[in-house]
Every structure is written in structure tokens, then in C-alpha cells.
């Protein structure tokens, strides 16, 4: 009978200890320069630990049967489902819209080359021509004479921005599209240890050599990245995933990176 008051005492004691541990972790994380989000994360672990230790000394659950057990079971499933969906929703969410435009651009050439792409292009052209003809007919009927038709929707809309012919801008776009930043740090941002920093690569490799490295990644190895398990780190796939003009654009962009203040490791010819 004295189990319940003892448990309450135990809960209070553990809650106080948990709060103290959480406070210490928060203070230490602040002193060590952790951003607020990490401090809250440490406090959350202290709370989890408190909950676990409270549970360890909780009194035994009374045996249930029949409808009561069934109701408890269903409630348990509802809680579990809610916790898992809620828990997953609390994490930062990747925005698919960030990727959609990128994927369209990456697959553009392959789509055009495919049967489906060819059919779609023909359909789009037919649709554009149809719209153009309709517009001309409408003008003729209303104005009594031929006029210049409005450009068809979805026509050559490539002008402007990165696609205007500026090779370096196109190359920068390839850097983003191929997600080179995941492995190579540039301008102080992006992947840190998988591949070398690229800020000074323009002073170390000629454009042709850069192109060779992209097409055949094992042809050049940066100093400090020559260990056996690192040799295959750069994927041998860009010769197929990228069109030659895209590789040329990327090379043009890389060739502009000439910041000697950054210690880009020296590439060594291997093939």
C-alpha cells in the first residue's frame, strides 16, 4: 500500500536530479559555444534520462483482461503512431521544391534523348504551333489584317540568367546541380573533409587537366587524399551524367577560382 507514496517521492527526487543535470548540460553547452538548438537538445536528453529512470522504479502495472486490455492496446497504438509522426515532423524538413527544379535541369538532356522526351517535345511543338495559328487567326478576324503573333508559351525561354551564354555562370550552376559542395568546400562553405577545398584550384590546374580529372577522377589526386580508400571517393560517373558542354562550363568556373589565401592541396598527376 505504501508503494504509491514512495513512487511519488522517487519521481520528485528524480525530476530534481534530472533538472539539475539538464541545467548543468545547458550551462556547459553555453560556455563551450554550442548554438541554442544544441543546448536544448542536451536538455531533452536529460529529460529522456529522467523519464527512463522514473519508469525503472514505477510500480507494476495491474494485469488487464478483456475489453480493458483491448482498449489499452488500441490507446497504446494511437499514442505510438502519434509520437512517431509527431517526432518525425519535429526534425527540420527538406523542401522538395529545392530539388524539383534541379532535377528537371539535370534530366533535361536525357529526357530529350529518350523516346518519351521526343514524343513530348513533338507534342509541345504541335501545341505551340496550334496556339500560334489560333492567335494569328484571331488577329486576322478582329483587325482585318495579319499581325505579328505573340511568342508561343513554353518557347525558347532560355534567354537570361545563367543560360544566357555566360560560361562561368553556367559552370557555377553545374557546381550547384551536381552538388559538388557536398564534398568540396568553396568560399568557406560546403563539405569539409571528403574532398579538397577548391578556392585556389585555378592556380594549380590548367582547364584541360581539370576536365581530365572530372572525366577520369583517378587521373589526378590531391596531396593528402592519396590513401587507398580515398582513391575512389570522387565518383567515376560525371562523364556520363554530364554533357560535354556542361563539363566545359564547370571547368570555366573552376578556372576562375584563384584565391592563394586558401590552401588548396596540390594535385598530382597519376595517369
Amino acid at each position, binding site marked *: 500500500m505504501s508503494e504509491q507514496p514512495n513512487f511519488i517521492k522517487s519521481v520528485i527526487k528524480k525530476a530534481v536530479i534530472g533538472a539539475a543535470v539538464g541545467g548543468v548540460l545547458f550551462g556547459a553547452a553555453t560556455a*563551450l*559555444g*554550442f*548554438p541554442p*538548438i*544544441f543546448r536544448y537538445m*542536451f536538455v531533452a*536528453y536529460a529529460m*529522456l*534520462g529522467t523519464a*527512463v*529512470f522514473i*519508469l*525503472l522504479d*514505477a510500480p*507494476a*502495472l*495491474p*494485469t*488487464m*483482461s*478483456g475489453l480493458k*486490455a483491448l482498449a*489499452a*492496446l488500441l490507446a*497504446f*497504438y494511437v499514442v*505510438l*503512431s502519434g509520437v*512517431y*509522426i509527431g*517526432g*518525425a515532423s519535429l*526534425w*527540420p*524538413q*527538406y*523542401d*522538395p521544391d*529545392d530539388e524539383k527544379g534541379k*532535377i528537371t535541369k539535370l*534530366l533535361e538532356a*536525357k*529526357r530529350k534523348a*529518350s523516346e518519351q*522526351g521526343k514524343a513530348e517535345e513533338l507534342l509541345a511543338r504541335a501545341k505551340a504551333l496550334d496556339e500560334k495559328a489560333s492567335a494569328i487567326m484571331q488577329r486576322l478576324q478582329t483587325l482585318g489584317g495579319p499581325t505579328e503573333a505573340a511568342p508561343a508559351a513554353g518557347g525558347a525561354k532560355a534567354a537570361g540568367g545563367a543560360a544566357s551564354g555566360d560560361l562561368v555562370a553556367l559552370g557555377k550552376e553545374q557546381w550547384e546541380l551536381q*552538388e559538388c*559542395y*557536398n*564534398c568540396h568546400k568553396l568560399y568557406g562553405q*560546403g563539405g569539409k573533409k*571528403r574532398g579538397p577545398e577548391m578556392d585556389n584550384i585555378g592556380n594549380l590546374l590548367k582547364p584541360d587537366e581539370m576536365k581530365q580529372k572530372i572525366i577520369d577522377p583517378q587521373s589526378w589526386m590531391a596531396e593528402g587524399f592519396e590513401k587507398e580508400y580515398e582513391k*575512389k*571517393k*570522387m*565518383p*567515376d*560517373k560525371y*562523364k*556520363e551524367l554530364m554533357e560535354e558542354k556542361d563539363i566545359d562550363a564547370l571547368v570555366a568556373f573552376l578556372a576562375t577560382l584563384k584565391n592563394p589565401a586558401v590552401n588548396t592541396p596540390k594535385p598530382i598527376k597519376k595517369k
Partner: protein
Amino acid sequence: MKTWQRSLLMLFGLLAVFGATAYAQVPNAPTVEFPYTGNRLAVWIVAQLHILFAAFILGAPIFVVISEWLGYRKQDPRYDRLAKEVIKVTVILYSMTALTGGLFIFVLLATYPQFTTWLINHFFLVFAVIYPLLFIGETIVLYLYFYTWDAWKGDKKARHIALGVLLNLIGTITLFVIDGPTSFMNTPAKAEGASIVEFIQAATLWDKIFNYSWMPLNLHRLVGNVTFGGFITGLIAAYLFMFSKTDQERAYYDWMGFVGNLIGVGALLFLPFMGYLLAYELCDYDASICPYMMADQLSMFFEMQGAMIGLIFLASNYYIWLSMKRIEGVERVRISVLAVLVMVALPFVMTYIWTIYPVPDPKSLFVLLPLVLLPVLFGRFVPFTVSSRAAIKVSFLMVIVGNAIWMTPHGFVATGAKLVEELELPGDWSFLALMPAKNSAAITLVFVTVVSYIIYNRAIKQGTIVWGKIDFASQFVLIFLAFSAIWTMGLMGAVRSLLRKYFHTYNLVPDFTVESFTPTLAYSAWWITGITLVFYIVVSFAIILTLRVSESKAHAHEGSPAPAGAK
């Protein structure tokens, strides 16, 4: 469910396969647009359900036959009864596997006809000959195994166990065969320097099957299936314990839950390493997969995975804790203080060592092995010991610490492209987000759970288990473990498929549909939960149908439930 009903279900499954195959032969068959869900989600739901059923029917027979063998060897009828009850559920779920498998092919062909026919053409022998033959063979052996259970007793028991081994052999080969096309979609065979498109055109069937991730996927699924089978057995036991009417029944189902959990957790200890091996091979195949998983679009999926693994380890240790409460004489059980010290030191020491000697450098094991063996080799020479309760409390603490390390991200962002200083680990602490720290966290979780089980085992040997008198909360722990294991399978299944990025077959067959993008974790969690619940409903129905209903027919009990107080 009667045999003719099961046969009807399987026939429907086969008809769906034939119908779908015929549909695929129609030139330029139009793509079906699934209302409400969209095509990708329709495939996701059916494929995941199929994999869950398949995982159970492949995993459960492994320990069914082990349990049957143990019963034969120890002459303990409880093992035989356990094995028979699980195989009854397996037979029902086998029909569901066939049904969802047929549906999966049908949906795949209807939604992605061009890609599916392309894949079938590349693996024609597998899809048209080997897999159907294995499936038919497995069906025959499974039914033979099930229906000869009572007939092949006594002298014929060894023959029956041999049949069970044959069933598992066929099941494992089936798994390995179908893993060929599955792994191929992630890591299609390639040769250094050669064009992947040209290489695939000339590659043999074996080249395509024996790709980078095939064997790691086989091992991961094999171990995962045993874990899954163990936890589902725990679920079956928990259901039947909850609705038991006598102490004898409760004693038996308490024991069954104990065995299911033991097998589930035993296999679970290997899973992090199998997962690591698979991830390692994927990264070795194409290093750009690694940041996509760990630092970019899927990074938060792995945070959720870390949370799930932490919860599963906490729950499995909590089950031990509750189990020990009903062991009389547990207070006498003590363990060397060295074991506790190693538990506490492990994550910190190994993070440091693996930073200097990263895995797979052989030197990375030079400290780990002596450290984990220290309590075993020198424990008896050190006079200081701690009580079992204190030691297990320390293991809970270290599961939380290990999990905290596992889950500490480099940045609280879903993509490295949006990383800003306010969300990033400070430079001096960035090692917490790197692989040495993550590996040490994984080894800590495994080590403390092993220590808990060693303590548990000593308690069982030195004390007396009062079967049936376990805290009722333990049944919810068993249900939690099964639910969480299924949910995690769903999550990692989504991850494995999403790793193909915007390709049906990575770098080879692009996915031009509008659904070719990485969904959010929250959206995925809704569907994973939905799929888990549907699977749960079907499994619950199968358990009630086969075990509760058949029991009400008052057939003779197989095996004698151990009375309370029996060891």
C-alpha cells in the same frame, strides 16, 4: 483460415502476376494514374507491405526450426508448441505475401511499364524461371512442414526438423535471388573506366546480380528478418498473454515472449554492423551517395533512425529490467566493476581511437578488443563488484549517452546547402558528427545490451523465474518493440529506395515523372505509420484467427505450459 481459402488467395496472387505480365506485353501500354495517392506512393505502399510480410515468412521459419530442434534436444514441449504456433501464423501470412507480391508486380507494371519491362528483360531468367520455381518449391515445403508436424513425431522428428532446414534453405536462396534485381537498382554493375550503359548491355546475369550492394543487402535482410521474426513472436506472445484466462496460459506466453525477445534482441545486436556494411558498400560504389544520406536530403531520415534505434535498445533493456523483477534471488547477482567501467569509458575511448585509426584500419580494433574483453579476462581477479540492479541502471544511462552521440547532427538542417553557424556544431566539437563517434555510439549500445543480458542470464541461473508473474507493462514493451522494428524497417526501406535519387536504376534509368524528388520526413512518417498499422491489423487478425479461434475449438494442448514457479 482453411486450406482452400489460402489456396484461393495464392491463386489470386498468381493470377495478378500473370495478368500484369500480359498487360506489360501490350505495346506502348498507357501508364495508369492512381487517384488520391499518385503512382509512386501506390508502389511504395504495396512494396513495403509485401516486404514486411516476406520478412516475416522468411525470418520466422529460421527460429521455428531452431525452437523445434531445442524442444527435441531438451525434450521440452514448450519449444515445440512455440514453434508450431508461430508456423501457424506464418502459413496465414504466407498467403498475404503471395497476394501482396502479385499486387506489387501489377501496380509496378501499371504505373511504370517501361521501366518494369526493362528490368524484367535484364533479369528475365530470375523473374520468369528461378524465382517462380523457388516460390513454388517453398510453398510445397512449407505446407509439407506444417501438415506433417503431428504425423512426424518421435522417431520421425529428426526428419521433420530436416524438412524445416530445407524450408529455410529455399527461403534464404529466394531472398538472395530477389535481392539481385533489388540491389541492382541501387548499385548497377559497372567497370572502372567503362561506360555503365555499355557495360550493362554486355554484362551477364551473374554480373548484374553480384553487384556492390548485393551481399551486404542479403546479410542485412537475413539478420533483419530474424530480428523481425523474434519481435513478432514477442508480439504474438504479448497478445495471447493479455487475453489468457488461466495462470498456466500466462506462464506459457510469458515464456514465449521471453524467447521471442531473446532471439529478436540477439539478432538486433548484429544489425547496426550489417547496416554499416551496406552503407559502406553504397558509399564505396559512389561517394556522392554518402553526403546525400548523411549530410543532405536524407540526413534527417537518419536522425529519425537514430531515435528509433535508441528507443528499441532502451525498450529491450527495459524488458530485461522487468523480467529480472520476477526472478527470485536476483539480489544475490553481482557483476565485476570492470564491466561497469568499460561501459562508461567505451564511447569516449573509442571515439578517440577511431579518430586516429578510422575503420576499416585493422589498428582500429587494437584497443576495442582488449577493452571489451577486459571484464571477461580480469573480472574475477578484481575484488570489487556491483549489484545487478546498479549495473543495469548504468547500462540505461549509457544507452542514453550512446544514443545522444549517435543522434548529434553536424547541423540542424535538412540540407548542407542551408547550413548556417547558428545551426552548426562548433568546430571543436564537429567530431561528434563524424563516423568515429557514430561507430563508438553503436558499439556502446551493443556492448551495454550484451552486459545486461549476461547479468540476466546469471540471474536466471542463480535464481528462480516465476513464469507468468511478470509486470503487465512488459507486454506493452514487447508490442512496442515489434511496432518500432516494423516502423524502422519502413523508414529504412524508404531510404534505400530514395538513394536512387532521380533514377529508377541509379545512374542508368532516369525517372522522368513529376514524383521524382525526395519527400519530406514528416510526409514519409505518415505513410510509414499507415503501412505499419495496416500490417499490424493483418497480423493481429492472423494471430486471433489461428491461435485464439483454433484454441476455442478445445483441441488438445501441444506441450505443457510451465507452471508458475518452475524454472
